[in-house]
C-alpha cells in the first residue's frame, strides 16, 4: 500500500522535473470546419504554429477574452493576423462544426465578428450531444472576415477559443477553403500518390493491395489498401503488411 503511494509521487516528481505542468485534461474542443486557425495548424496547412499543432483542442483560457488564443502568452501564434491563414469560402449562413474530446456541461456558445456578437446559443448547463454544429448567419457581411468562437464552460471559469477565417461571397455556402490572398510559397500541384512498387516504405504513400515494399532490409506485401503514416511501419502493422 505504501509503495503504491510512493510510485505516483515519483511519477509526479518526474513530471515536475521535466517541466511538464500542462495537464492532459486541459484538452477539450475546437472548430474543425470551416477550419479554425488551430485546425489549419494541426493539418499542416499553415506552418510554424508551434505546440498548437499537437493540441488544437487545448485553447482554454478564462472567459471573456476577444483574442483567438483567449489571452495570455500560450498559443499566441493564433492571434497573428500576418500569417497566411487560409479563408474558407462561405455564403451568408455558415455551419460551424466542433470536435470535442470532453463533453463539458456548457453555458453558452458565442460567435463574434470584430466586437459584435453575431450569435449565441444557450445550452443552460447541459452536456453537449454527440456532435455539435451551429448554423450562424453572418448578417450580410461580405469579403474576408475573422469569426471568434467561444465555448463557455458551465461549471468552471474557463472557455475554449477558436478563430475561423472566412471569405464570404454571395454564391458560397459550403466550407471550401480558398488559398490565402498572398501565397508566399505556392504549393506544387498535387501529384497522384505514387504507387511505389518495390520501393522503400514511406509515410504518405498510398499502397494498393499486393504492393511490395522494403523496410529495415525486409520485404513486405500490402494486405489492405491504405495511405502509409508514421507509426504504421510494416513490422508494426501485421494487419496491413505481410513479410515475404
Amino acid at each position: 500500500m505504501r509503495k503504491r503511494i510512493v510510485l505516483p509521487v515519483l511519477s509526479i516528481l518526474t513530471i515536475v522535473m521535466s517541466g511538464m505542468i500542462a495537464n492532459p485534461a486541459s484538452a477539450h474542443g475546437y472548430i474543425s470546419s470551416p477550419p479554425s486557425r488551430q485546425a489549419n495548424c494541426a493539418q499542416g496547412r499553415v506552418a510554424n504554429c508551434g505546440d498548437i499543432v499537437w493540441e488544437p483542442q487545448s485553447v482554454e483560457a478564462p472567459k471573456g477574452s476577444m483574442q483567438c488564443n483567449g489571452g495570455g502568452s500560450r498559443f499566441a501564434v493564433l492571434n497573428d493576423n500576418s500569417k497566411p491563414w487560409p479563408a474558407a469560402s462561405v455564403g451568408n449562413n455558415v455551419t460551424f462544426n466542433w470536435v470535442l474530446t470532453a463533453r463539458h456541461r456548457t453555458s453558452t456558445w458565442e460567435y463574434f465578428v470584430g466586437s459584435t456578437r453575431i450569435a449565441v446559443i444557450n445550452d443552460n448547463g447541459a452536456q453537449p450531444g454527440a456532435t455539435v454544429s451551429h448554423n450562424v448567419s453572418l448578417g450580410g457581411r461580405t469579403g474576408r472576415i475573422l469569426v471568434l468562437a467561444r465555448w463557455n464552460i458551465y461549471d468552471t471559469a474557463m472557455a475554449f477559443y477558436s478563430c475561423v477565417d472566412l471569405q464570404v461571397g454571395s454564391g458560397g455556402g459550403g466550407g471550401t477553403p480558398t488559398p490565402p490572398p498572398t501565397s508566399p510559397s505556392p504549393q506544387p500541384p498535387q501529384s497522384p500518390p505514387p504507387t511505389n512498387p518495390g520501393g522503400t516504405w514511406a509515410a504518405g504513400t498510398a499502397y494498393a493491395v499486393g504492393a511490395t515494399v522494403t523496410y529495415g532490409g525486409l520485404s513486405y506485401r500490402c494486405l489492405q489498401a491504405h495511405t502509409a503514416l508514421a507509426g504504421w511501419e510494416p513490422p508494426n502493422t501485421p494487419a496491413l503488411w505481410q513479410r515475404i
Partner: protein
Amino acid sequence: MKRFVLLAVTLATLAACDAPPGVTTAPSFAPPSGSPPPAVSESGGHNPTDVMFLQMMAAQYGPAAELLKLAAGRSANTKVRELAAAMDVTQADELAKVQGWLRGWSEPLTPAADPSLHAGHGGLPATGPDEVKALRDAPAAEFDKVFLNLLIGHQHQAVEYARMELTAGVNPQVLEFATRVDQTRTAQVTMMLGMVSG
C-alpha cells in the same frame, strides 16, 4: 498554488486508478515473494501509469471499432472508407497487444468505472453508445461530417493518453507503443481534418 493543486489531483487520481474500488489486485510492482515473476519482468517492469494507459486505451477501442466499421461500410468517400478500414484492422491488432500486456500483469482489462477518477488524465473515453448511435442515425449527406468529427475527437483523446504515458510510464515496450499511438493518431487527425474541411 494552482500548480500544486493540479499535481495533488493528479497524484490522487493516479493512485486511485491503480486501485479501482471493489477490485482487489496485488500491487503489480511488488509481487509476493515465492510467486513466479510476472512474464513481463525481463522487459523492465511497469508502474501504475503503464497500467492506466493500457486500460484507458482498451476502453477506447470498442466504440472506435463500431464507428470505423460503420464508416468503412457507409461512407461515400473512398478515402474515408479506406482510412477507416485501415484504422479498424490496425486497432484490432493493438487491442490484442494491450490486452496481452494487462493479462500478463494480472491487471483488470478495463479502467475503474468512476469517471471522476480519470479526470486528471484525459477523462474516460468521450465516445460511447450515444456517439455510435448518432453516427448510425446520421443521414447520408451528414455521414462523413459526423464520423470525422467524432473520430477526430476520439483519436485526439488517444494522443492525450499516450502523452500521459510518455510523461510518467516506465515500461519500455509500452512506452514504445505510446510513441506509435501518438504518431499514428496525430497523422490520422491531420488526414481527417483535411477530409472534413475539404
